[in-house]
């Protein structure tokens, strides 16, 4: 066996120091919650790394799309994009129809419309995705507090609900996806207006799914039922009426009376690109707002 040169042995004090430093950071951040002393450091690093990530994403985007150019010509690709956008718009119209009917029956429609037109969107692109090794589902988008984005704002795309903003830097924001395990969204079943809570399964497989626990244990969700957001006070963190997903299976255990449903989200989280952040109308920022109706 080759002799080990003594100069390369790690000094015990350095190793102990490093381990203690790790434990200190862990304790500070785990105990501190939102007011943890690590948070300013996080923001500072985010302000530096965020633009670098945005720049890298912009730089590699042409290469990512290169494969598509070889596959079909530009015109076909445009057509596909237009059709799929139209498709998802029509689908969400169809899927929310039972809900709309119920709302009309409850004479809720008028206030709903008024409130819905109060939303405005800031468009952003996903520039970084958290790896599954981190066992959490987060993405970075390329718009931040300079565009009027604040924590606890709803993020959606044209298929449905994506997640909520958890923290922002000047030019980027971190979004917690609804399929993350720590994510809880209030949901409403489209067919019978029942309320429940959706939790992310946090699975890393291709089929991202959510668990729905209904508050009223006597109701049974039907397969294919659409779940939309129930909404929170002042629209934070989730605004009401955004389609989330469809019931794919229902199950219950003999020990408890409540029914559990598994929801397949409308959004494909592995290929997120353009998303919209719901901001109050009249927000001032460096990006143009998209008001309801697409204007």
């Amino acid at each position, binding site marked *: 066996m080759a002799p080990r040169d003594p100069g*390369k042995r790690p000094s015990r004090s350095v190793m102990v120091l490093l381990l203690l430093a790790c434990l200190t950071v862990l304790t500070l951040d785990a105990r501190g919650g939102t007011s943890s002393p690590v948070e300013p450091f996080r923001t500072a690093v985010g302000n530096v790394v965020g633009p670098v*990530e945005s720049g890298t994403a912009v730089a590699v985007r042409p290469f990512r799309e290169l494969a598509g150019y070889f596959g079909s010509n530009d015109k076909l690709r445009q057509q596909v994009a237009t059709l799929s956008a139209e498709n998802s718009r029509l689908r969400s119209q169809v899927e929310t129809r039972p809900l709309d009917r119920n709302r009309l029956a409850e004479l809720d429609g008028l206030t709903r419309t008024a409130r819905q037109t109060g939303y405005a969107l800031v468009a952003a692109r996903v520039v970084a995705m958290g790896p599954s090794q981190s066992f959490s589902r987060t993405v970075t988008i390329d718009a931040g507090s300079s565009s009027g984005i604040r924590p606890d704002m709803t993020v959606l795309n044209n298929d449905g609900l994506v997640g909520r903003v958890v923290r922002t830097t000047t030019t980027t924001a971190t979004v917690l996806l609804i399929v993350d395990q720590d994510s809880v969204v209030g949901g409403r079943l489209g067919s019978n207006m029942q309320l429940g809570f959706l939790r992310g399964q946090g699975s890393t497989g291709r089929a991202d799914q959510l668990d729905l626990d209904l508050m009223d244990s006597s109701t049974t969700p039907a397969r294919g039922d659409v779940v939309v957001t129930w909404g929170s006070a002042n629209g934070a963190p989730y605004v009401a009426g955004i389609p989330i997903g469809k019931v794919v299976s229902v199950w219950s255990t003999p020990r408890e009376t409540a029914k559990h449903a598994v929801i397949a989200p409308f959004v494909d989280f592995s290929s997120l690109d353009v998303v919209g952040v719901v901001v109050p109308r009249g927000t001032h920022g460096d990006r143009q707002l998209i008001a309801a109706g697409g204007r």
Partner: protein
Amino acid sequence: MALLRGLAALGILLLAVVLQVAVFGYVSVDGVVPDLALLVVVAAALTRGPQFAAVLGFAGGLLLDVAPPADHVAGRWALAFVVVGYLAGRVRQDARNSTLAALATVAACAFVGTSVYALTGLVLDDGAMAAGEMLRVVGISVVWDVLVTPLVLPVLLLAFRRLRPPQLVY
């Protein structure tokens, strides 16, 4: 000079972290991407020994903990990478010249690093999932890291050799 070398090492780490979240997300397998930051730490350990690698691992882990898409308790990757740097540095005598041993080191480090990270998640109740799911993620990440090692590790080893302060050869 020492300061410049440190900054260069930090630059390599930053590049690895940015590539990992902004580029490799598009080629991920079930969301798992090759752990470039871990490969940087292993390369540092193979050329410079455990102490340097542990310090670099702490810096890299902390960067991974706080750089934008991350939303877990800070310090978890830092702890995992300090352990990885130490372990990889201790076996370096055998792994320095043999390709197979280097691959085995990377595989072992990927397994240990991701596992330590997962275990701290269990202890802190932060993003913990079922054991089977965790093992699957750890397995995929080990395979990924071993696959990209032949492409990335030689470049990193060369870079860290160039960064090594001049010393007597014996």
